[in-house]
């Protein structure tokens, strides 16, 4: 794991949180969409909050795809779940919502889970990937994965 790869994981976390918040804020301004004015959804993207939110969610998707190209799914998902915590923090600061003790406990559990997975290897060697390498994929990835797995 290089510094740049950690930066991509941070990107996944931050872009998804900000994108969702901006989208929610824009849609609230826009008002409820019912089946009668479904075409109104097309105009929702004209709302600046919504359009910036969509751009951020596209950035999230790019970071997420990049992360999945060099790390396991079971690594990326828990490692980026801090976004749930970030949403609570944003709600606390921006909207002055109270955070109940159970929510604090939830935040603590998520943080513990993130710490647990982030301390381990990001990529584990697998049967399928071994088969790929025999078809001419670079060998150093496998060596890196094996050396990472050897770490505690």
């Amino acid at each position: 794991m290089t510094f740049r790869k950690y930066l991509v994981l941070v990107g996944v976390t931050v872009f998804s949180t900000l994108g969702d918040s901006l989208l929610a804020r824009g849609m609230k301004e826009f008002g409820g969409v019912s089946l009668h004015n479904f075409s109104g959804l097309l105009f929702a993207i004209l709302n600046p909050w919504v359009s910036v939110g969509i751009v951020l969610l596209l950035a999230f998707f790019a970071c997420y795809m990049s992360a999945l190209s060099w790390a396991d799914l079971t690594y990326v998902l828990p490692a980026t779940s801090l976004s749930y915590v970030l949403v609570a923090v944003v709600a606390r600061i921006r909207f002055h919502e109270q955070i109940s003790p159970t929510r604090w406990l939830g935040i603590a559990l998520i943080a513990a889970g993130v710490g647990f997975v982030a301390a381990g290897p990001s990529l584990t060697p697998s049967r399928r990937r071994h088969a790929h390498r025999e078809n001419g994929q670079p060998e150093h990835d496998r060596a890196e994965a094996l050396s990472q797995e050897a770490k505690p």
Partner: protein
Amino acid sequence: MNDLYAWVSIALITLAATTGDVLLAYSMKRVGDVGEIWKTNGLFAVVARILTTPTFFLGVLAMAVAFYSLLFGLSWGNLSLVVPASASLTFVGNALAAKIFLHERVGRRRWIAALLVAAGVALMAV
């Protein structure tokens, strides 16, 4: 009756989101390290390789199904049940699916992480 619909939608969301995540992870592993490809062949090569991977589109399709199931679920159940229940179950479902279909080595460390996060997400909604 509304409860039943809410749980049906939770099952649908979990199934579709897990399928989508696994298909996307599988596609990106086939594409290879995006950073390396970008460095050697440029951004255009990255986009071209992703767009020529058929499972990528299946993954996006599954994600779209999950999104519409969520809209369906939200019209039946309340937000505070459907969102955390499906998110939490998706974490556990992904750990299982990654082990079975992607042959990832889900060791004790990753199981604990997945379960901690799933429990945490469920608690956040209370």
